[in-house]
């Protein structure tokens, strides 16, 4: 009898182990969002001009989010690429400013699930700004560069709105710079003496809420339709910073439309794609 019990337990144990071995592996999905937008811009760059330049622009934003590991749905990473180009005029329309800016950021978020419909992601994002402003009629100071890196506090609220046929999602994203490093030339310095002669003293500044304030808000409504989630939204970006006695302002209102979709990627050193995933590379 004792032998029969041991045998039965052995078979049972081996079945459990076998069942565990047959659990499907988890793959991380990356949620990608691509949006384009029309922007209304208003800039003050006192290095180039004390006047307010206003105009229009076009923007493109690409955003990716994924959890760090398949087994933990509390922590996720985010990467974002944003480009904005625009043309602005001074109040008397006698001078034009051309703007081209690129921003890349990487960050991490913690997920608070408040109820079935409401989730908040809070975290930080490290970003790099590279922008070029040009007033071509200026003499010896036609260009100013915005070079900055920032650590930002970020927050994202996701609220599901259940309709009859589909579930919409309202997203409210907020971001504000906390600390960083930025390039701001003296108003009386030329790029010739800064970059040809190397006179860059005091052109780079530590930034904090004391001398750099900004709030970047994006309100988006996600509408699922077939295999893609369409996005409609508005972005309000206000930035003000000061260094070397110069106060810079940048206000942007963008109306954006885009799409959001989940993708799975297999790449890097470990080609982890299982055999039943077909790729053109194989």
């Amino acid at each position: 009898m004792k032998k029969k019990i041991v045998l039965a337990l052995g078979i049972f144990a081996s079945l459990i182990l076998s069942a565990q071995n047959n659990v499907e592996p988890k793959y991380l999905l990356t949620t990608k969002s691509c949006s384009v937008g029309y922007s209304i811009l208003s800039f003050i760059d006192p290095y180039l001009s004390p006047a307010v330049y206003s105009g229009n622009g076009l923007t493109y934003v690409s955003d990716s989010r994924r959890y760090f590991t398949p087994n933990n749905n509390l922590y996720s990473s985010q990467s974002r690429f944003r480009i904005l180009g625009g043309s602005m005029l001074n109040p008397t329309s006698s001078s034009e400013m051309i703007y081209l800016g690129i921003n890349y950021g990487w960050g991490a978020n913690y997920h608070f699930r408040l109820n079935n419909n409401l989730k908040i992601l809070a975290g930080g994002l490290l970003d790099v700004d590279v922008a070029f402003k040009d007033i071509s009629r200026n003499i010896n100071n036609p260009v100013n560069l915005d070079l900055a890196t920032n650590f930002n506090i970020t927050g994202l609220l996701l609220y599901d709105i259940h309709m009859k046929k589909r579930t919409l999602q309202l997203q409210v994203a907020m971001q504000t710079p906390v600390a960083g490093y930025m390039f701001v030339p003296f108003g009386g310095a030329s790029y010739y003496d800064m970059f040809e002669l190397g006179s860059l003293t005091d052109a780079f500044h530590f930034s904090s809420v004391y001398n750099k304030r900004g709030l970047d808000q994006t309100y988006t409504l996600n509408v699922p339709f077939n295999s893609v989630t369409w996005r409609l939204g508005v972005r309000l970006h206000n930035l003000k910073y000061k260094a070397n006695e110069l106060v810079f302002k940048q206000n942007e209102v963008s109306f954006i439309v885009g799409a959001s979709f989940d993708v799975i990627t297999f790449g890097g050193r470990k080609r982890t794609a299982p055999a039943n995933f077909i790729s053109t590379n194989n």
Partner: protein
Amino acid sequence: MKNLIIALFALFALASCIDEPETQPNTYAGNFESLWKIIDQKYCFLDYKNINWDSIYTVYKPRVDTVSNQYVFFDLMGSMLGELKDGHVNLYSAFDKSRYWKWFTDYPTNFSSSLIGTNRYLGSDYRIAGGFQYATIDNGKVGYMCYEDFSDGFSDTNIAYILKSFSNCKGLIIDVRNNGGGSLDLSSQLASYFFTEDKVTGYMSHKTGSGHSDFSKPVEMLTVAHPTIQWKRPVVVLTNRLSYSATNAFVCRMKEAPNTLIVGDKTGGGGGMPLSSELPNGWLVRFSAVPMFDANMNQIEWGIDPDIKVDMSLADEAAGYDSIIEKAISLIK
């Protein structure tokens, strides 16, 4: 969560420390205030020229109240800028450009393009390369190159050909009279062919604040000897009062070049690199912002004295001679 909200409010309360950029209304008074302030905070020679800019305000402010139209206002603002006695200061509107020209109109011309065009000098068979008009003169013993504008670009190849054509000459004349300036890069590049080793030939500074004496520590302006193209025989640089701005900077470098003499009149100056700003009405203002100094840290805003001062004489001119070129030829011989 409550702490987080309090922290966020604290952040924005701190952020209110950033002042709003000051803007003036687009009125005569607002534009006057704006122009006066731009010069007050950014013009780099107020102290050096002993200009009491506050008293200029006192003199001109009441006149603004009597202005009847934009033309009168423009002339008034042009007059105010004229107090700076600076060829680099201009006010640009859609209908006019203010200027101060006394830095050359009050002096002898010391240049005659018709004389240079005679067969004794360039004649009609001269060559042109990269903005240079060049020929051998004095029976092929002296090379002569005339450069009228430091905005006309040139390459090493241009210079190599020009200097090669002077290979049998005893020396070279570089005529930068009536050259009102242009690119500082080109002035540095042209000087580089006449140095055999790198040398500090000047300094540059810039304003670091709104105070009249707020300047950065001067940085060296190095003239880097060209690695392959080097003219080692005598050079004479011809100057007059219209040798201005980047040309002034070129002469400043050539003062330190070996085997080189500056001959003619004092240069016009323009030793402050100009930057620009604008008024609420959209007018552009250009002003000297970045002072340059010679190798001994002397200002070059008022011009650079020649090594040998020569003015053109009417008698020589009537006889078909350019007194300054003739002096240069005699020095090379």
